[in-house]
């Protein structure tokens, strides 16, 4: 029994210690892995160095964060201080009152030349609760050694099994896939959502996807396509551009990028409503989303900073020493054909089209 008592005390002490730290903890929820690491390096570490009374705790539960946030709010017990979300989730959280609205110009730092924050972020502030950090894109990677001398250059190649036989990986969601299918089927980009708004349009997109359905591996996590490419399980696949960057440049796998009709999306911060350290978090955000910090993040991960004023300051990769600007999804060479995620269309139709898509998958 003595041993047991001692263990109990030891365990109680070791768990209690976390709460007993003298600095104030800010719980920041993000995606984990390389992404959290880039935030840690670019934002958290310098902020904590300058503000020793603040301790930033990383919680890598951004997957499914809206569900947890909603349950916390229902219960009136919000334990998070800041959450990293993709824009569509931020819009949803804002709609549901899960996040507080931000007065961007008052809370956030202006650009070095004095341009107010709202103007510096421009159109990327898609919701009053949303503070954009990065522009990322969902695009294609392919195995260089399995495509011969003619690497794929167009979205049509994804649907061309004769020219590029083999498995492809696509996300297990209607979003992006339906758009790409219509583009490959000859629908002009500016008509996509008009067509998708009709049942015939959805059928048309699914019919196009039917042509490659047997050759598709469906992914759910961003890391799956890079893994499948590295293992040679697929010849090409969609994923986030930053994941492909690390496969190509950091892991030196024989993988190439195909940027045609990449779909831009945004990722950024929301401040949960009912959080206990609102003032401290806003103070932190002023620092973490200023021009320099956003540019710094691009040293660690290849996503484009959301401020216009950060773009010219993007430098070299911290450890690889390569120039990061050409790897940004927004670089002119990469951005000849692009789509921007249509937040409004998908807010209305995601439930319905997900069901249609799931039913199509199951057939």
């Amino acid at each position, binding site marked *: 029994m003595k041993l047991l008592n001692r*263990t109990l005390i030891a*365990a109680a002490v*070791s*768990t209690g210690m*976390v709460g007993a730290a003298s600095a104030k903890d800010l719980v920041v929820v993000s995606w*984990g*892995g390389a992404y959290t690491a880039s935030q840690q390096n670019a934002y958290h570490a310098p902020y904590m160095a300058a503000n020793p009374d603040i301790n930033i*705790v*990383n*919680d*890598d*539960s951004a997957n499914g964060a809206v569900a*947890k946030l909603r*349950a*916390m709010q*229902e*219960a009136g*017990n919000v*334990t998070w201080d800041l959450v990293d979300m993709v824009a569509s989730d931020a819009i949803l959280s804002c709609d549901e009152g899960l996040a507080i609205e931000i007065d961007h110009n008052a809370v956030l730092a202006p650009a070095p030349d004095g341009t107010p924050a709202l103007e510096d972020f421009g159109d990327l502030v898609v919701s009053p609760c949303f503070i954009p950090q990065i522009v990322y894109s969902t695009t294609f990677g392919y195995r260089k050694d399995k495509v011969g001398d003619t690497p794929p250059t167009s979205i049509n190649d994804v649907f061309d099994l004769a020219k590029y036989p083999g498995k492809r990986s696509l996300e297990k969601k209607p979003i992006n896939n339906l758009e790409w299918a219509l583009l490959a089927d000859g629908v002009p980009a500016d008509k996509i959502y008009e067509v998708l708004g009709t049942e015939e349009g959805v059928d048309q997109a699914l019919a196009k996807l039917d042509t490659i359905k047997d050759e598709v591996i469906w992914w*759910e*996590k*961003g*890391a*799956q396509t*890079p*893994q499948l490419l590295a293992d040679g399980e697929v010849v090409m696949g969609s994923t986030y551009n930053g994941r492909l960057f690390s496969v190509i440049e950091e892991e030196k796998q024989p993988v190439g990028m195909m940027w045609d009709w990449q779909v831009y999306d945004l990722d950024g911060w929301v401040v949960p409503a009912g959080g206990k350290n609102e003032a401290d978090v806003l103070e932190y955000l002023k620092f973490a989303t200023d021009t320099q910090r956003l540019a710094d993040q691009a040293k660690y991960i290849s996503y484009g900073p959301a401020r216009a004023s950060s773009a010219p300051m993007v430098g070299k990769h911290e450890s690889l020493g390569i120039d990061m600007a050409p790897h940004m999804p927004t670089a002119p060479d990469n951005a000849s054909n692009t789509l921007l995620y249509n937040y409004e269309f998908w807010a209305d139709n995601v439930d319905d089209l997900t069901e249609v898509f799931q039913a199509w998958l199951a057939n």
Partner: protein
Amino acid sequence: MALPAYAGTLETIWYYLFRFICALIFFFLIAPIVVIIPLSFNAVPFFTFTEKMLTLDPEGYSLRWYKDFFSNLNWQGAVKNSFIIAFFSTIIATFLGTLAALGLSRSEMPAKTWVMGILISPMIVPLIISAAGMFFFYTSIGLASTHVGVILAHAALSTPFVVITVTATLVGFDQSLIRASATLGANPTTTFFKVIVPLILPGVISGALFAFVTSFDEVVIVKFIGSYQQRTIPWAMFSGLRESISPTILAVATLLVLLSIGMLTTVELLRRRNEKLRGLSPG
């Protein structure tokens, strides 16, 4: 059972064929567990045997995934959480489960089947449903994202195992022993510690081990009601398997296999001791 001397050709063939089939099934059961052990010493980040490994070239092997495991703070945090959560939930489950089993095995216990049915239900209800229910409920009482919440949830999940194992040891329990002890002048406390405890102890310990393993292996519930601060080994493995598959997972798996061998041995020894005590096997 040896092949009888009078067996015909057909029977002889069947005798060996049958053993061969059984051997294949045993192979199916054990091979996946055995195969991860050498794979975890792979020098390259793949899930398969390399040329060098097959030729037993020492260069094909390395301890790098074990080093990764022992130096990575994420894994170390997961190990610590797993042990803390499993330890406390085991204590709660064992205590409550043993008491209940003592009550349930009394012939006077009313509505036994119904009560047993409810007490066993955490084992039967699909995990995702338990997880969903606990997720909403524990969030509403402020226990989500805390160690206490996860410990209580795991304790609830593992009590059936304790109840079942302890009840099983009590099935052959001779109630007259208690009376005998009382007649000989022992008070109930003495009877409990000197007569009942030694008899049910093997069941309690194997129940506790089951409870420990249940918590140690559980991932659905901890993912729903825990947050990153409660991240356990299975959780880390689950996200590792869904995202980047590194052989570190195989190193962890190998260590866990060693742990389960230890547990299995303990339970088997206890079972035999129990049978011996109850005179069920010559020993």
